[in-house]
């Protein structure tokens, strides 16, 4: 066990340094001096060795957002009646049915797979191609799954934090998940180019519209927007991997363990802790 762990750490270290060289030299954060224990612990906990690169990527994404996505979303939110926006959202969510179903199965969650199948069947037919979420009204609520989460349930580590161009906050595990999902999606293969060309920006606008107020709030109230997004992304993913179940392994503020103790494996060990 020990050998395996040592090997994994070694491999991870090698991959990390190789990837670090692959990036621009300026893209890698310099680890703090080894004798500064607080700084080293904070550095490891952040699990963000490419922070300068990631910050630059966030700036790039924000500039794109400000120039294109945000104004378009603003017009969409102001101009399109709310019920129609809900229809668009339902339609796009319904299209994800096959991906969610496949990932439910891959995770061995057969009951959830059944729910997803039932929802897809109901909403695609009587819900008129998914524009109405009658299943939710019949108390069969939606749930999300993706291949990034499936990998996590298979105990694949998340790897370091990465901000992808256009796609935003991610990590190697979720990046692979994103690619795998689009490959396993029947709508990628069975629909004409025009459909796909409309779906992708549609999805971007719908998602941006859902998060519109929160993003404004965060921009206004944060001291370090980048760090907040990073923290939110990780916590959200962990919660999704646990299928929304509360975690009890977190440090308890107010208790004697109120001060977080650094773990040998940093944040990664928490991300893959089995949850139900």
């Amino acid at each position, binding site marked *: 066990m020990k050998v395996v762990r040592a090997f994994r750490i070694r491999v991870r270290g090698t991959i990390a340094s190789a990837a670090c060289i692959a990036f621009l030299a300026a893209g890698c954060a310099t680890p703090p001096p080894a004798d*500064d224990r*607080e*700084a080293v*612990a*904070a*550095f490891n*906990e*952040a699990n963000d060795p490419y922070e300068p690169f990631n910050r630059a990527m966030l700036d790039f994404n924000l500039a794109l957002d400000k120039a294109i996505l945000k104004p378009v979303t603003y017009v969409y939110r102001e101009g399109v009646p709310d019920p129609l926006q809900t229809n668009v959202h339902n339609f796009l969510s319904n299209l994800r049915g096959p991906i969610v179903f496949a990932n439910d199965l891959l995770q061995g969650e057969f009951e959830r797979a059944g729910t997803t199948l039932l929802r897809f069947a109901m909403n695609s037919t009587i819900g008129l191609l998914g524009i109405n979420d009658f299943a*939710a009204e019949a108390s069969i*609520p*939606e749930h999300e799954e993706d291949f990034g989460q499936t990998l996590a349930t298979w105990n694949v580590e998340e790897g370091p934090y990465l901000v992808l161009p256009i796609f935003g906050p991610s990590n190697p595990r979720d990046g692979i998940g994103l690619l795998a999902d689009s490959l396993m999606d029947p709508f990628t293969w069975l629909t004409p180019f025009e459909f796909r060309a409309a779906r992708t920006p549609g999805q971007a606008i719908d998602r941006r519209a859902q998060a519109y107020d929160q993003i404004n*709030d965060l921009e*206004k*109230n*944060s*001291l*370090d927007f*980048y*760090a*907040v997004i*990073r*923290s*939110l992304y990780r*916590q*959200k993913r*962990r*919660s*999704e991997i*646990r299928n*929304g179940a*509360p975690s*009890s392994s*977190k*440090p*308890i*503020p*107010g*208790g004697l363990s*109120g*001060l*977080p103790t*650094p773990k040998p494996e940093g944040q990664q060990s928490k991300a893959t802790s089995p949850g139900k």
Partner: protein
Amino acid sequence: MYRSPTSALSAFVLLLLVYASPAVAANPEIFIKGLGDKAIASLNEQGISQDERIKRFQSLLNDAFDLPQIARFTLGRYWRVATDAEKTEFVEVFEKFVIQTYSARFQDLSGKKLTVTQSREVSATQTLVLSEILIPGKPSIKINWRVHSKDTQHKIVDVMVQGISMSVTQRDEFAAVIRQTGGKVGGLIKALRRKTASN
């Protein structure tokens, strides 16, 4: 005056909700339920000024939350290296920051309802209370409260909204700010002062 003992009882309970300190309750579940009802009733009252709303929010916050303890948690590992003067100053400016940030987030409570779904003990003195905010025509929002209890006295030490802990988010952000200002807690205090002075 009352048609039945039940309505007399519910009127009495209502009185308690309005006048009693929400921090005193038989158990953490009742505490959270009472706090939710009180917050919605008092912050959603029509015709009160914005200043009055913030004042009410502040008194609810001070009553129901263990802010010094939360402040200490959000400083994480840096609490140990902070000087006593820095600790005092940090707790003070943290409370200001929380009131400014969160009073805006509790602006629109109209039509919303809080229901407690269940609770579980996480330690001898702490309970996790699971609840949902119901919004008409929208999916409900899951909110979990970590409550520290001593007899009938309860204080909230963390709130998790859809699985995201407010304390952990704040701690991660503060750590990043401290790291960027050369590992000094003073740098964070300065940034918080600027933030609370500007808006």
